C-alpha cells in the first residue's frame, strides 16, 4: 500500500511550521511519529496535499519539571516515557500507561502529543492525561494558547485544534507529593487497541482526596472522564466503601458498545473492576509517599 502523493516539508522551527500550515490552509497534516498518520495515508483514509514533518525541530523532545508542571515536549516518544524516572510515583498513571501502548517498536517512534492530536477514542494517552488533569500548549499564527484536554477532544478523531496550530507540549499539573495513580488496560494481544482502559490519578491532602481523576478508554466516542466518580471521591477517605462506590459510578459513566472485543456489559464490568483496582493502587502509592 502506498500513500497518495503529497508535498513534503521539514521545517527547522515551530514558526516555520506554522507559516507552512498557513499556506496550505486545512490541506496539510503535521507529521511527528507517523505511527497513526502513515497507516491512515496508506489506507487512503487521509490524503493530505502536504506533510509538515516536525521531527527536525529542536527543543521539543524533553520531559521536565517546569513552573509547577511536568512538561512533555511534542516530540517525546512513548519509549521516552516508558524509560523516564519522572513518570513514576506521583505521575504513575503516565508511567504505567507508556509501556502498554501498541508494541515496543511502534513506541520508538509514536509521540504523546501526536496521540492526543489524533484523538482516537481508543488512545491510551488521552485517558491517562485526562485523569492527570493535563492540558496542551498549542502555537498558531496568533500566539500560544492553553487547551484543556476535555476541550481538546471533541469526538472520534476530532479535536478543537485549528489547522494552523502546532501542539508544542503537554503539561501535567504537579499533584503534590502525596499522589499516585495507574493505568489498567485490557488488550487481546500486544499491539491491539484497548478492549477497555481505565486511568486513575489521585492526590491526597491530610488523608482525604484533594483531587481524583478517572478516565476511560474505548468505552465511548472519545476518552471519557468519569465525573460523578471523581466528584464522589473528592474530600473522601479512600476506604473500601468509597472505592467500591466510585467504581460503580465509573462503570455507569462508561458508554460501551458490543463489538468483536467484547459485549457492552462485559466492558462495563471491566471498567468497574479496573477502577476499583486502580484506586487501590493509587491510594497505596499516595499514602506511602
Amino acid at each position, binding site marked *: 500500500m502506498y500513500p497518495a502523493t503529497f508535498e*513534503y516539508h521539514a521545517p527547522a522551527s515551530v514558526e516555520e511550521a506554522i507559516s507552512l500550515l498557513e499556506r496550505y490552509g486545512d490541506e496539510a497534516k503535521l507529521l511527528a511519529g507517523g505511527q497513526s498518520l502513515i497507516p491512515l495515508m496508506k489506507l487512503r483514509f487521509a490524503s493530505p496535499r502536504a506533510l509538515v514533518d516536525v521531527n527536525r525541530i529542536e527543543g521539543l523532545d524533553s520531559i521536565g519539571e517546569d513552573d509547577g508542571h511536568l512538561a512533555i515536549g511534542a516530540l517525546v516518544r512513548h519509549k521516552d516515557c516508558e524509560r523516564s524516572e519522572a513518570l513514576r510515583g506521583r505521575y504513575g498513571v503516565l508511567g504505567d500507561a507508556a509501556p502498554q501502548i501498541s508494541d515496543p517498536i511502534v513506541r520508538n517512534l509514536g509521540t504523546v502529543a501526536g496521540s492526543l492530536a489524533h484523538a482516537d477514542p481508543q488512545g491510551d494517552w488521552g485517558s491517562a492525561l485526562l485523569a492527570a488533569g493535563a492540558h496542551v500548549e498549542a502555537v498558531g499564527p496568533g500566539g500560544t494558547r492553553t487547551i484543556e484536554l476535555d476541550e481538546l477532544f471533541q469526538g472520534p478523531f476530532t479535536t478543537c485544534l485549528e489547522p494552523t496550530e502546532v501542539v508544542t507540549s503537554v503539561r501535567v499539573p504537579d499533584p503534590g507529593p502525596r499522589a499516585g495513580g495507574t493505568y489498567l488496560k485490557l488488550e487481546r494481544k500486544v499491539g491491539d487497541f484497548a478492549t477497555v482502559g481505565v486511568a486513575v490519578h489521585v492526590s491526597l491532602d491530610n488523608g482525604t482526596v484533594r483531587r481524583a481523576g478517572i478516565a476511560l478508554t474505548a468505552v465511548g466516542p472519545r476518552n471519557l472522564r468519569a465525573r460523578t466518580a471523581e466528584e464522589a471521591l473528592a474530600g473522601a477517605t479512600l476506604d473500601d466503601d468509597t472505592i467500591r462506590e466510585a467504581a460503580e459510578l465509573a462503570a455507569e459513566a462508561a458508554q460501551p458498545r458490543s463489538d468483536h472485543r467484547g459485549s457492552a456489559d462485559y466492558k462495563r464490568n471491566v471498567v468497574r473492576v479496573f477502577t476499583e483496582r486502580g484506586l487501590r493502587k493509587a491510594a497505596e502509592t499516595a499514602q506511602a509517599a
Partner: protein
Amino acid sequence: MTDTAVESGVLTRTLTVSVNGTGRSAEVENRLLLVHFLRETLGLTGTHVGCDTTSCGACTVLLDGVPVKSCTVLAVGVEGREITTVEGLAGAGGLSPVQEGFHQEHGLQCGFCTPGMMLASTALLAENPDPSEEEIRWALSGNICRCTGYQNIVKAVQYAAAKMKEEH
C-alpha cells in the same frame, strides 16, 4: 534538509542516507516508504513486507540503532540518518552473534519474520546485554512469527547474549 521556501507541487526530493555503513543517495518520491526504498530502490530485499499495517514487524530495521517498522516510515523522513538492515548484520568475521544464535538454536522455520526478529534482538542486546527471558519476550512482542511458537527465537537470543559475553 531544511526548507526555507515552499516549493509548491514538488513531489520528489533527493534523499541521502547511510545504509549498513555506506552512503546512498537517490531521487525519491515523497510518498516512498522506507521499506520500498530499501527493497526496490536499493535492491536490499532482506527487509520483508509482511502485514503492511505496522503490526507484524517483518519490515523492522534499525534507525540510528533503534528498531522501527520501515513500512510506517517515510524514506524522506530519514534524511541523513543511519539505517541497518539484515544485510548489515554480518561483519568481516562472519555471522553476528544474533545471526549465529538463530542458526544454532533453529530460531526460524520459514524465515519470513527472521530479519525483523534479528534486528529487534540486536537492538535489545545492545541496550541490555543480559536480558531475562521475560525481557526478551517483551522486546520481541512487536514481531510476529507464525511458525515456531517463539521458543527457539528466545533461545537464539539467549545464545547470542551468552556468545557476546564470552567475546568480551
